[in-house]
């Protein structure tokens, strides 16, 4: 973990304006929080918070960031000291918010915002509407169908994978997301996909059960955690990198267990015909 004190952003120091330290720190914290909970890398959170603090003239600020914690302090010597720890539950990826905060921090560094304007801008980003659930479900279905094709399925397989892809995202949004733990949710997801694909296969939709299952389990695969884990580790943020990598591995294993259980249960029931 590097502290921000080592990587000052030189250009903003000259233009620094003196503002109320606590407000600036709170602003930086909120920006960091928005980034972290929506799937940004550790170094981006550090850089953004640093940029905001330096621009508004809080030279003594430093922050320590983990996968789901931000700790920030400011103040030196005997005077007033700002210190805050915040726990941040990671709630999936909303890369549009990451992009928006990133853009905002650039504009702050260019001097386009006062502190209170920046607060308002952050609030607008926080309230940015999520994509509609119907759109997400549709995207999941289409992507599953396309993945099925990538891995060798024919047209009917793709259709079946698309149907299973719709259903798996309904499962993610309404059952596993709000109600189940990560482990049970993913084991269940893997089993659910296997079950749906088997039913479709027995109903005569799709010819290659394997490709159908592979395509429609892709929405469960933890590609974001995996990629960000590598980036964090490559940046030297080993703790967050390791934790995220364990997270990704755990999900991978859970999906495999779910699919395996699905096959093991269904195979005798369908007389092995499906496999």
């Amino acid at each position, binding site marked *: 973990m590097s502290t921000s004190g080592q990587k000052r952003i030189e250009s903003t120091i000259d233009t620094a304006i003196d503002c109320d330290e606590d407000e600036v720190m709170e602003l930086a914290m909120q920006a960091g929080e928005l980034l972290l909970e929506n799937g940004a890398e550790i170094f981006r959170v550090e850089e953004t918070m640093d940029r905001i603090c330096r621009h508004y003239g809080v030279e003594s600020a430093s922050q320590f960031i983990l996968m789901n914690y931000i700790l920030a302090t400011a103040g030196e010597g005997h005077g007033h000291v700002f210190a805050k720890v915040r726990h941040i539950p990671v709630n999936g990826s909303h*890369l*549009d918010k*990451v992009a928006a905060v*990133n853009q905002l921090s650039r504009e702050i560094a260019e001097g386009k915002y006062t502190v209170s304007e920046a607060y308002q801008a952050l609030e607008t980003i926080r309230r940015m509407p999520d*994509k509609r659930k119907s759109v997400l479900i549709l995207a999941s279905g289409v*992507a599953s169908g396309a993945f099925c094709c990538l891995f060798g399925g024919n047209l009917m397989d793709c259709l079946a994978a698309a149907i299973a892809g719709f259903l798996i995202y309904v499962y993610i949004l309404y059952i596993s997301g709000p109600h189940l733990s990560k482990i049970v949710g993913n084991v269940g997801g893997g089993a659910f996909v296997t079950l749906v694909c088997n039913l479709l296969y027995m109903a005569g939709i799709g010819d290659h059960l394997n490709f159908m299952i592979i395509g429609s389990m892709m929405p469960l695969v933890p590609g974001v955690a995996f990629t960000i884990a590598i*980036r964090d580790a490559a940046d030297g943020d080993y703790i967050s990198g390791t934790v995220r990598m364990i997270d990704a591995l755990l999900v991978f294993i859970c999906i495999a267990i779910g699919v395996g259980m699905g096959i093991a249960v269904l195979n005798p029931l369908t007389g092995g015909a499906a496999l």
Partner: protein
Amino acid sequence: MMIQIIAAVIATVGFSVLFGVPSKYYPYCGVIGGAGWLVYLIALERFSTAGASLAATMVVIFLSRLAAVRKKCPVTIFLIAGIFPLVPGAGVYWTAYYIVTDQLRLAAETGYTAVKVAVAIVLGIVFIFELPQGLFVRLAGNK
């Protein structure tokens, strides 16, 4: 092959939607995902799965960094969806499948390949992020 690449583009854009990528960047994500899969298919004729994954990952990351510099936004936006077709989801499936059906030798083989592919992706990401930012600024500026 054409159909495969179109499928890769569609799959990548689909995942961009799931991850909340701003809609104006969908075309970039699609092109990056398609290019990655094209390179993967070409490389697969000469190299192993892991080698092809390494080449494809490097292309995906290179294009993502270029797009990020040009559009002045986080590189994550472009690379996550683009890298998705390469992540060994199928490997995980086959491993589970072979374990359950008691074909342990095949299970070990596919599991080992999946790990190799994952390592190849890691190396691809790390290598290309080592390239200096200035290179991408210059490349993007010339266009």
